């Protein structure tokens, strides 16, 4: 095992917290792009984004299930839980930035990067983590808790490290006649509380179900080992769904990656409201109704994360209450996006996802400590 592997249960818990943080971090960009689409246009894109954002919510919940299974405590109100945008994600040897922006070619280029299946090229295999080139004040997602100055080659690699960590720690526990899966099973979120939520939710109780859960997250995002469909051959991976929009054509069974041959689809690249990228409450003219509405949305989103935290900590039935709240978000986000941004001609408002009480502390990087 390489020196970056997970060796303690506490470390595994921190990794799973970061997995939840990562899964959540894709939701604001996808949701904002989805609701930035003007009425009456881009029905294909709307459908693709809607399906994907729902599956990201599923991944968030799956990560919470794994964390609960090993006796951890999911915490979506920890100060650094919600990323500050633009945030950095690993993609091969460099990071890229994820932004809150309107639906368009630029947004899609970012979404493709988020979901890209990334295997290391041969010359980098076994070379360890990669030095981060992104400045320290940018939120870095999917980073290693002990090595903030380094990043994984890809999100897939981040999850593989978690899977290896689970296997290693469970084998170690077995040696001592015990298990790492000591969590209270009543904290598991199952389909009973989470219907039509982008896939099946099963309880994580042992090594097998934990590895299956990680597999599901990776397959829905990147596809199965570079294949366009998942292993049951019925569901197209996120990467290829986004690619369909870029290429203007649907995939069908038997297609090769990068070459969809199904029916054509229409994308109106201008069919979105011109929201200001990565808007912050501080950029909105104080005293304007938009300013108030942006703050009100952030507060409500904070309530939502609190509700999820309680749901993931032994009150799964609270998830049913979260559903109307998400519909409420839709209405709030639509209003923000349709209103012009005062003093920024040609730009519209946007949700800012700055959650009260979670002001991000500057991260001290290992490299800076050593310097």
């Amino acid at each position, binding site marked *: 095992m390489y020196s970056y592997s997970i060796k303690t249960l506490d470390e595994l818990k921190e990794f799973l917290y970061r997995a939840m943080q990562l899964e959540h971090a894709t939701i604001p960009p996808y949701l904002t792009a989805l609701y930035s689409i003007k*009425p*009456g246009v881009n029905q294909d894109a709307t459908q693709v984004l809607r399906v994907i954002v729902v599956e990201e919510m599923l991944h968030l919940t799956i990560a919470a299930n794994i964390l609960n299974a090993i006796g951890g405590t999911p915490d979506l109100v920890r100060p650094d839980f919600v990323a500050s945008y633009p945030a950095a994600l690993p993609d091969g040897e460099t990071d890229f930035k994820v932004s809150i922006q309107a639906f368009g070619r630029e947004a899609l280029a970012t979404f493709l990067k988020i979901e890209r299946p990334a295997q290391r090229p041969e010359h980098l295999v076994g070379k360890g983590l990669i030095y981060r080139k992104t400045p320290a004040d940018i939120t870095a997602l999917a980073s290693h808790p002990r090595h903030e100055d380094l990043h994984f080659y890809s999100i897939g690699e981040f999850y593989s490290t978690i899977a290896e960590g689970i296997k290693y720690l469970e084998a170690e526990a077995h040696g001592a006649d015990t298990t790492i899966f000591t969590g209270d099973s009543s904290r598991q979120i199952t389909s009973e509380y989470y219907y039509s939520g982008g896939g099946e939710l099963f309880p994580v109780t042992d090594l097998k179900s934990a590895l299956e859960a990680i597999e599901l997250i990776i397959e829905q995002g990147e596809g199965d080992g570079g294949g366009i469909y998942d292993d049951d051959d019925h569901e197209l991976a996120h990467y290829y769904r986004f690619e369909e929009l870029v290429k203007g054509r649907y995939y069908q069974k038997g297609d090769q990656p990068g070459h969809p041959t199904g029916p054509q689809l229409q994308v109106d690249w201008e069919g979105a409201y011109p929201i200001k990228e990565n808007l912050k409450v501080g950029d909105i003219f104080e005293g304007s*109704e938009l300013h108030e509405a942006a703050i009100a949305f952030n507060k409500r989103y904070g309530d939502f994360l609190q509700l999820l935290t309680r749901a993931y900590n032994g009150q799964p039935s609270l998830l049913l209450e979260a559903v*109307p709240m998400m*519909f409420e978000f839709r*209405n709030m986000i639509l209003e923000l996006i349709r209103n012009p941004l005062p003093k920024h001609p040609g730009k519209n408002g946007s949700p800012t996802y700055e959650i009260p009480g979670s002001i991000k502390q500057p991260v001290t990087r290992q490299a800076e400590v050593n310097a």
Partner: protein
Amino acid sequence: MTSRFEPFLGLSAELTAFSHFDLLGTGLAERYLATLDKVVGGEITDALLAAFTALPPPEGEARIQAVRTTILGNELLGDVARALIKLWYSGTWFELSSAWTERFGPRPANITFVVSPDAYIEGLLWKAIGAHPAGAKGPGFGSWASPPKIPAFSGSRFQNLT
């Protein structure tokens, strides 16, 4: 945005008791101004906007009086202003009365019509009663267990207008 848009928004806010933010949030303000132009013509629309611009300063008793006399009580503008209120609330343009067309001449586009599918969805009436348009903007399973959310109206000072 044209120089007519701001007065149109101001007029609409005053007539509907919803805020600029709410009105812009429907995404329909520009289309409703275009609807007025299409149905009654640019001249009458301009006359309506001019009447609004000429009102005394906001928040005073004189303004409320003036809204009554120079807009809602005006023979030419009154019916148009009422149709505009109905348009914002329901997304539907309701045909102006025969008395109006006899007096000011028929307009070919003056028939009852829904402006667009999203005009129905974004009708202010749904927000005003804390409900959602049937078949759209669903509030989610089980939401009926909670009381409706009815907005506090910014224009309550106009409650004596009707």
